[in-house]
């Protein structure tokens, strides 16, 4: 935005996102007068085109507080108390941005990021992770290393920084007209995905959620088994991948892991997808890439 000095009328170009809701003091570089600048209210979005935001947090109070804050800034807000609920909301409302708690029950925030980033149809959704108060004596992760989240906010900074962060993220999106996300294309896909949930009765949504939960549990267990196998066998993994005998070298552990997976995961889930096999293959492929070996 452009602001003028009330005394000498010199004009200044200010980045909106750096102006907090309560305003900011500016000192005119020419006449030295100090004056208060305020962010212009966000122009109301055209009807039916409001930006949709999903807020996923265990605390109802938190969700309502953020909802109130965002609705006064013209965003359309949906809330979810846990990861499973958030997933079904995601499918229903197709938000442009998600604000998600790092320690969300059922599916952690960072797992959620991972799921979204793996899904081509959802990969354009912006994600802001919410964490509790940060201990300044400790190191913390940079947002870009948080499983593909776009930004990160600590709880106590929400009143001041959340809206500017959202504006910034969505502006970046708007400034890139050539992004591989033509709205028409998404809309078609969204309708395709949304139709069944709209026509289904609410009673039928429950089994889907339960099934989702079972799948999530199976995926999580498979990932842990794979990571445990890898963590305990780091010395032979590279050899196995280079020589193409990975499964032979790690036979015992993989067998143990598969036994435990079969014991813990219901047969109907195992029949539909072999998550353990999938994550093993995914690990091998990523390791091959890391070692500069072509895919088999």
């Amino acid at each position: 935005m452009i602001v003028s000095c009330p005394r000498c009328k010199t004009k200044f170009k200010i980045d909106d996102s750096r102006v907090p809701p309560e305003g900011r003091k500016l000192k005119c570089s020419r006449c030295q007068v100090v004056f208060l600048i305020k962010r212009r209210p966000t122009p109301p979005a055209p009807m039916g085109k409001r930006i949709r935001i999903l807020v996923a947090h265990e605390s109802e109070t938190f969700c309502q507080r953020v909802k109130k804050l965002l609705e006064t800034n013209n965003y359309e807000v949906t809330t979810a108390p846990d990861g499973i609920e958030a997933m079904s909301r995601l499918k229903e409302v197709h938000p442009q941005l998600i604000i998600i708690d790092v320690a969300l029950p059922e599916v952690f925030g960072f797992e959620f990021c991972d799921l979204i980033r793996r899904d081509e149809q959802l990969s354009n959704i912006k994600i802001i992770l919410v964490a509790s108060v940060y201990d300044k004596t400790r190191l913390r992760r940079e947002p870009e290393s948080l499983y593909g989240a776009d930004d990160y906010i600590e709880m106590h900074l929400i009143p001041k920084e959340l809206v500017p962060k959202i504006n910034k993220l969505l502006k970046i999106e708007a400034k890139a007209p050539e992004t591989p996300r033509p709205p028409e294309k998404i809309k078609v896909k969204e309708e395709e995905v949304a139709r069944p949930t709209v026509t289904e009765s609410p009673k039928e949504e429950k089994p889907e959620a339960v099934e989702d939960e079972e799948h999530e549990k199976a995926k999580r267990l498979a990932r842990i088994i794979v990571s445990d196998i890898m963590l305990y066998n780091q010395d032979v993994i590279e050899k196995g991948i280079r020589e193409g005998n990975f499964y032979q070298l790690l036979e015992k552990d993989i067998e143990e892991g598969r036994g435990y997976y079969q014991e813990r995961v219901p047969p109907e889930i195992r029949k539909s997808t072999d998550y353990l096999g999938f994550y093993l293959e995914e690990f091998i492929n990523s390791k091959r890439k890391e070692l500069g070996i072509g895919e088999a």
Partner: protein
Amino acid sequence: MSFINYASREINCKIVYYGPGLGGKTTNLQYIYEKTNPTAKGKMISLATETERTLFFDFLPLALGEIRGFKVRFHLYTVPGQVFYDASRKLILKGVDGIVFVADSQIERMDANMESLDNMKINLQEQSYDLAKIPYVMQYNKRDLPNAAMLEELKKVLNPNGVPDFEAVATVGTGVFETLKTVSKLVLVELRKGK
């Protein structure tokens, strides 16, 4: 449950270090072992699994004071961390008097922590133990790593009931003895209650 040896006038208590693979359970025990007076400790024993490759548990008796003329000896055990060695973990939990859950603070291991915690609760229930009634403390290990999750998140996810908890860097001993002292005290309190 604690075992009383009347001949040697000793009460033997079992403390199990539980937690996800490579979270620092063995490092905790090794540190305690190194820093303990040689006259007060027994031999540290490592048992291997049937594959003879995996460290399965460590055993460390520590003499620690007396209760009504009986010496109290603590036996410290670790369980195999790999999620799939569940049978061994069940076996080691038998007769447990106190538990230390060693969580790996790295954010990437959050789901492994959760899985291990759930697994511990299931295994205790199977043996008719109630976690709420067992002396139990939580240790957040590897606090020195740059990818450590924030303490608030760890507490929220892993310790919703607010049992005594400690931050630790087991490799250098930070938080190791604080954790042990607390769980030992809780075990002693339980022992006194039982008398």
